[in-house]
């Protein structure tokens, strides 16, 4: 049993915390700076991102392994993947709109933004190097959890910054970046474990 659990946990922790997508690889900075002012919206955004990320990873990995690679057109990956992601976001938005009003209300406004979120394309592009479908999905899940963790942590910090006395030139994006820098410094400590 532990032969399965240990590598799975290791892959999750590595991709979620030690090699965090937002703080260590700079993926998905735009929603991170733009959306994460309220706790609710950052939870909604990260749920939408994790959802789309897992589905698109499950679709693009077979596409690359069974179509692009055998046909020797691996260089078309970016074009194919962005099409898959854009269509998928549109499709998921439609389905959620038809089936669940509550979910649409909480996730709906974030879904169109996701197509241009670099964390999805980044993860999908990195995943094609993974050895098996299972590993690819695990890494996707880990990266998504890491993104959600940082979004929620960061939004609670930003809420406090709103009311504190910041030097005028630092208001807005600069202080958010510096906070992110300090957060990244703390997270880089995990790398030395």
């Amino acid at each position: 049993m532990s032969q399965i659990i240990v590598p799975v946990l290791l892959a999750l922790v590595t991709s979620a915390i030690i090699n965090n997508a937002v703080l260590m690889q700079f993926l998905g900075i735009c929603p991170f700076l733009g959306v994460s002012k309220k706790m609710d919206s950052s939870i909604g955004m990260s749920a939408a991102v994790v959802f789309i990320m897992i589905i698109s990873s499950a679709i693009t990995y077979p596409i690359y392994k069974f179509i692009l690679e055998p046909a020797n057109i691996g260089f078309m990956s970016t074009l194919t993947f962005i099409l898959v992601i854009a269509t998928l976001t549109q499709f998921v938005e439609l389905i959620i709109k038809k089936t669940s009003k509550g979910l649409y209300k909480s996730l709906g406004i974030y879904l169109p933004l996701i197509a241009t979120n670099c964390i999805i394309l980044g993860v999908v592009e990195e995943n094609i190097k993974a050895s098996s479908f299972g590993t690819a999905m695990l890494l996707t899940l880990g990266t998504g959890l890491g993104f959600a963790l940082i979004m929620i942590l960061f939004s609670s910090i930003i809420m406090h910054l709103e009311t504190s006395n910041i030097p005028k030139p630092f208001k807005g994006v600069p202080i958010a970046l510096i906070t992110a820098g300090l957060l990244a410094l703390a997270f880089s400590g995990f790398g030395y474990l």
Partner: protein
Amino acid sequence: MKTKQNLLKGFFKENPVLVHVLGMCSALAVTKSVESALGMGLLVLMVLIGSNVVVSLVKKLIPNEVRIPCYIVIIALFVTIVKLLCQVFLFNLYESLGVFLSLIVVNCIVLGRAEAYASKNNVFDSFIDALGMGIGYIIAMLIISISREILGTGGITFGLNLIPLDNPVTLQIFPPQFALSFLVQPPGGFLCLGIILAIISAASTRKRDGDKV
């Protein structure tokens, strides 16, 4: 708007990275060294020009409802071309940029210019706009990467990936043992960009107040 104004607006006044805060992912990720930042800037400039010109050429053919996916496909086409060219001619740069080369597709600057400018203006103006914005992006990347590399390593090294030399030349400004090496690591990128944006915001507030008095 005059052509010259159109070209110059992207340099400082409407700089995509430093004023509009777009395209932050690449501005943080590839600015560890001046050379890869410059290489990334040139590649983005090529993609921007290509996508802006094509979008403004075909803007009448694209139905309004599906314009964003169409723009993304056009951009992805140019990114694929640039990626292949880079892999053939500048392999070291290709290796050092890694996944961020593909991520030009979702760089907000490129899509932003296609949506905000090229879809409304003629081919020549769109070309000039792309040129100005691309150069503005390069300027921003150079400002960030020069401050990061000098403070982080004590000097600037040339000849590693843009134009590979047998012996990379290092322009040492102060000895490396005094350098803040954390600035070339991920956390330093956030801090450095935050401070640069604060300096710019302070300077622009001072200028605006000066105009009032």
